[in-house]
């Protein structure tokens, strides 16, 4: 299939680079559905007669596969270009839904694990990194803005998938008007089939719209010397294999891990947390279920808008400084939340909103940070390896929060004080991330790729 090759996607003269962000967004909006699985979680529990944990495993497998496939397939994505990567991602993502629907119709939960979890998860990982290096090459003047636009889509995908899935489930289930209605397994199966077709079409639009810039292309008026003026920004290139040998890669990994772990701590517990924070001595809460649902929605908006706004801001401030804000100011806000969050709902909501916007910002700014440190050569592959920090944080964040809360009492009887140990642990993590980010310095020249007339005497060893 030569029409998918990188060589066939080189932009002709006059191509408008602003066609590239919607192509990237098309893919990220589709794979962002991964954060809308709660819509049919209860329906699957009932359909399979399984526990919440057994159904939750579907999502966990998908996120682990996201990290693994991004890390393993990153170099392949960089070598083969964005069109082939998006096409492959679409095939895996849609196949995941098809296999998953087969599992639902045939009452085989393992098929849902294999389909949505494993196959779909591979589609998630390839899709997530597929447009990143292309965007950075099209927008050397605003890499943070460009990757922020795409990665914002991952946050936005859930905002679309959630109401659309609810509407489709109601349409497919004749009993949807009944009191205490839970969608039938058959309607979830039909939903999966619909999503497979719609997402395949949308992602194909992205695959066939995206183009890579011709060798040496630069935007009009762009002066590389201005970018180079920042001390951390390199014009050299480092391969993915060498990047993981550098101290800088692991410092950024730690910074991202700490930022994501802290954010997930709030996101995972958002709805019960606001109710617990405003629990009265008689056991009732000032925050109703509707208020809690509104709070979760507000956090989704904060997560999505933070991805775009903070990443775009990093083009002005520099990547290291914006990470100091995410981690340093984040630690301060977390402390206030832990110690004074229960004094006012307005204060609580405002603090959580900003903290979650930092969480999203950390994700979206990471590719541009890697570009600054390692150049554009294999930035997609390096980004793929960095995403293992996300997988690790996905395990660590909920584990920390749940372990502390389990020790404090049972759900429904917790209050603001119950959350203090977990939140203050997150503050400690953010401080560790802050220090790691502070230690980031330019990459040593021995890791740079050879240029014409300059050879590297030997393969660089792991940096001590």
């Amino acid at each position, binding site marked *: 299939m030569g029409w998918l090759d990188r060589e066939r996607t080189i932009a002709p*003269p*006059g*191509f*408008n680079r*602003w*066609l590239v962000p*919607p*192509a990237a*967004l*098309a893919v990220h*909006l589709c794979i962002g559905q991964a954060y809308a699985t709660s819509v049919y979680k209860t329906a699957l529990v009932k359909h399979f007669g399984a526990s919440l944990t057994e159904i939750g495993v579907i999502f966990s497998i998908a996120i682990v596969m996201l990290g693994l496939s991004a890390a393993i397939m990153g170099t392949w994505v960089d070598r083969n270009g964005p069109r082939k990567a998006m096409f492959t991602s679409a095939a895996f993502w849609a196949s995941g839904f098809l296999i998953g629907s087969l599992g639902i119709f045939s009452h085989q939960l393992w098929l849902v694990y294999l389909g949505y979890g494993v196959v779909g998860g591979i589609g998630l990982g390839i899709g997530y990194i597929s447009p990143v290096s292309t965007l950075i090459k099209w927008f050397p003047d605003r890499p943070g803005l460009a990757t922020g636009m795409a990665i914002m*889509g991952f946050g*936005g995908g*859930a*905002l*679309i*998938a*959630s*109401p659309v899935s609810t509407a489709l489930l109601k349409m497919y289930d004749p009993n949807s008007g009944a009191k205490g209605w839970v969608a039938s397994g058959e309607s979830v199966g039909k939903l999966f089939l619909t999503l497979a077709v719609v997402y395949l079409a*949308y992602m194909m*639009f992205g695959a066939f*719209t995206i183009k890579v810039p*011709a*060798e*040496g*292309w*630069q*935007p*009009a*008026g*762009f002066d590389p010397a201005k970018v180079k003026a920042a001390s951390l920004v390199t014009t050299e290139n480092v391969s993915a294999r060498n990047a993981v040998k550098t101290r800088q890669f692991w410092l950024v990994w730690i910074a991202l891990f700490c930022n994501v772990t802290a954010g997930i701590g709030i996101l995972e517990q958002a709805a019960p947390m606001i109710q617990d924070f405003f629990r009265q001595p008689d056991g009732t809460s000032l925050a*109703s279920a*509707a*208020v809690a*649902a*509104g*709070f*979760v*929605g*507000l956090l*989704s*908006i904060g997560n*999505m808008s933070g991805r775009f706004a903070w990443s775009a801001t990093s083009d002005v401030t520099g990547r290291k400084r914006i990470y100091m804000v995410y981690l340093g100011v984040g630690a301060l806000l977390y402390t206030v939340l832990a110690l004074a969050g229960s004094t006012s709902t307005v204060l609580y*909501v405002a603090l959580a909103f900003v903290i979650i916007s930092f969480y999203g910002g950390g994700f979206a700014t990471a590719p541009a940070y890697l570009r600054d440190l390692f150049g554009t050569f294999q930035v997609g592959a390096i980004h793929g390896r960095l995403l293992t920090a996300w997988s690790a944080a996905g395990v660590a964040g909920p584990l920390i929060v749940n372990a502390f809360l389990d020790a404090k009492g049972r759900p429904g009887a917790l209050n603001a004080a119950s959350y203090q140990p977990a939140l203050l642990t997150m503050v400690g993590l953010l401080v560790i991330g802050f220090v790691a980010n502070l230690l980031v310095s330019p990459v040593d020249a021995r890791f740079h790729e050879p240029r014409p007339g300059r050879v590297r005497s030997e393969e660089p060893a792991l940096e001590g």
Partner: protein
Amino acid sequence: MSSAQTPVTPSTGKLVIAWALVGVPLAYGVYETLTRVAALFG
């Protein structure tokens, strides 16, 4: 080929369609979410 590339044909129609294809669903998702958020301030 290191010269700066200025768009020769802005392909405005294509640009509008491409952005609408992603912008309209995203705007719908944000609107639906904001209606839920309203409960927070109601």
